[in-house]
């Protein structure tokens, strides 16, 4: 791994951490509702710098965020870890297999969908074990996830175009500006 890649991962992970911290401050109507803003960074990392960078950024973000909030290795950590890994893997696979088919919005939808699928299955197998409860809540979560997925996809597109326009794909210049 080149030092420039490491630097890039560090900067992106810091952005993702900041976004997820910011998101946890926002009041939401439902306690478990998350906007998934950090996924914007994962998505941009994936589209600009490839799967390895995106996965690294996601792992660092999930682990550090849980350390900061004191939930490391707790239920919330397991849920966001599983969701982060599966959604990044799904987005990476989709990006590789259908590069010309899906734009950022489509990838973000794929990511949101698999994030929710991972969390629901983990919640079912590890914590709740009550299929009716999961079946009732699943469509609601998937619906909200689709809406936030679109919003994050649009933001990712704007951010990506900005990075490409201003810095010729070099995120390193952002921090210097």
């Amino acid at each position, binding site marked *: 791994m080149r030092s420039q890649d490491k630097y890039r991962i560090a900067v992106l992970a810091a952005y993702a951490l900041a976004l997820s911290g910011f998101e946890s401050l926002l009041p939401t109507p439902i306690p478990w509702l998350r906007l998934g803003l950090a996924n914007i960074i994962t998505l941009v990392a994936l589209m600009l710098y490839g799967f390895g960078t995106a996965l690294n950024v996601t792992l660092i973000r999930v682990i550090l965020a849980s350390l900061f909030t004191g939930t490391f290795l707790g239920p919330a950590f397991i849920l966001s870890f599983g969701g982060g890994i599966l959604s990044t893997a799904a987005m990476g696979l989709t990006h590789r297999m*259908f590069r010309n*088919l*899906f*734009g*950022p*919005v*489509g990838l973000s*939808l*794929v990511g949101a*969908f698999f994030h929710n699928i991972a969390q629901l299955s983990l919640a079912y197998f590890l914590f709740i074990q*009550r299929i*009716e*409860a999961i*079946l*009732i809540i*699943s*469509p*609601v979560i*998937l*619906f909200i996830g*689709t809406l936030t*997925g*679109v919003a994050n*996809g*649009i933001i990712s*597109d704007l951010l990506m175009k900005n990075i490409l326009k201003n810095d010729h794909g070099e995120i390193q210049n952002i921090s210097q500006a």
Partner: protein
Amino acid sequence: MKRIIKITTFADRLLFLILISASVTGIFYSREAVSQSSGVVIEVNGRPEFTFPLHTDRTVSVSGPCGNMLVEIRDGKVRVKEAHCPNQLCVKEGWISKGVIVCLPNKVVVFVGGGHDHGKDTDAVSG
């Protein structure tokens, strides 16, 4: 809005429509499925005395001609936990998640499932 359409591909929009319609259908379907199924109706002397959802755990005391009996609802299943009838057939029937537990001496019938149309399929024996 125009901008959003510009940055999305056809596959993006198709995926969005599929996810939205699937989840909306799911919301309505799951509500309906839950409200229709999984009810427990306890009849005493041919009259419905209690109706409970199957997914809430509880133990109910039902009093019939032979005295009290305990009906337990747990993990989506129902059983008669304790009864004071002589042959204890209802207790021996154990946990059910569907169908009927009948206690003839006590004139208690425990229905599980469907909900409201049990009166229609009562046959000569249980009626």
